[in-house]
């Protein structure tokens, strides 16, 4: 598995740390249920998922990869800051 870092180019998976699914952050004053769902509940899809990977062994940027959980194929990578 290789991840194509927008800053560094394609690099080995070993350079990256997995940081979990990209989830919308509730509003600061949102109800407990919204925060509970954010922290604990997951869609856990079989198929494409948007997730954070941090290029720890490289530029240290947080990236958003769209990866297929069945084939492990990575379809797209962008910098997390580039919303």
């Amino acid at each position, binding site marked *: 598995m290789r991840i194509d870092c927008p800053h560094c180019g394609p690099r080995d998976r070993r350079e990256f740390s997995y940081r979990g699914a990209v989830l919308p952050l509730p509003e600061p004053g949102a109800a407990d249920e919204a925060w509970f769902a954010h922290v604990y509940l*997951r869609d856990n899809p079989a198929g494409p998922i948007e997730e954070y990977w941090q290029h720890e062994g490289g530029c240290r940027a947080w990236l958003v990869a769209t990866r297929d959980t*069945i084939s492990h194929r990575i379809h797209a990578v962008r910098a997390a800051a580039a919303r």
Partner: protein
Amino acid sequence: MRYSLRRVLWEGLRGQSGWKPAWREPEKRDSYDVVIVGGGGHGLATAYYLAREQGISNVAVLERSRLGLGNVGRNTTIIRSNYLLPGNIPFYEHSLKLWEGLEQEINYNAMVSQRGVLNLFHSDGQRDAFARRGNAMRLAGVDAELLGAAEVKAMAPLLAMENTRFPILGGLLQRRGGTVRHDAVAWGYARAADARGVDILQNCEVTGIRVEGGRAVGVGTTRGPIRAGKIGLACAGRSSQVAAMAGLRLPIESHVLQAFVSEGLKPLIDCVVTFGAGHFYISQSDKGGLVFGGNIDGYNSYAARGNLPLVEEVAEEAMAVMPRLGRLRVLRSWGGIMDMTMDGSPIIDRTPVEGLYLNAGWCYGGFKATPASGWCFAYTIAQGRPHALNAALSLDRFATGALVDEAGTGAQPNHH
């Protein structure tokens, strides 16, 4: 048909012509009192204990492929009850006690071998942590012994005691832990459940859960619809997807865990050894192969295969703890899909949908739990409430904050 030494001899004399299939291939019926989704170890054990302990035998187990092809046939076969937290210890000890009587009870040789599980420690801090765990176990009536370096060396002479980075200072030993032939557990429970009237329906994938007025009343399957008084889900790595059919979102991520087996060798390691400075465990099968594994790969996955970085990590750990393994050839490696929860502990409970029950979140430690999981899930389904043994393993603990987090790493499934 009862299995016995006399039967083996008798069949030997008449050309093995009298053996019968261990379970039936029944026709699907339209309706059952209880439908169990998932014919892995947990689903089959649940069906067996429903019939045996709860007196409910109008039960079907629905399996999307064939029995034994899921995690029950992919794990590294280790059983133990060396847990730390009050919510876990009695449950896993109940499981170990059930293992101890299982083969006689179901008349099936599952090769339960209490060869001992030895957890090595490599620092003073880790010794303290293991001593604490051992004390917690002993307070709960579970066997545990803290060994020094000399005792460990005598027990497992292959270990690299003097490794500069990770010297072995001792180990926590549970003598009653060990290994069990995993496939035989699926087959044995299937045969025992079938003998009590349970229908095992293979190649029967559940594609939908029918909910009417907040109550689960049946399932849609690739072999047609089935009505059910109650439905129990035991789908291991697929739990999120099957639960979503009833509109539930679970505190679970699916991850891949790999395992490895070496070429066959003469007897070399006579217990289960785990390396405490990383995550590595090894034992020797009765066929002679060394069976070993390590961590999950660390990212969500529904592929029953992993990637090379983890293979490298496992090999490094093997070399750190038993350098002599370096000359061995690995015969096979494979992966299984783990339902990792947010606190690393499983869930056996009711759900917000009436009549729908959940058995999930076994992470990479669910094989040892198979008997107690089936026993407690059968109780929970039949009585409509959890048994004291699985009361802490509730679905709402994530909302209430009563987590059962053995590793203490928080809501990050890939760290448990």
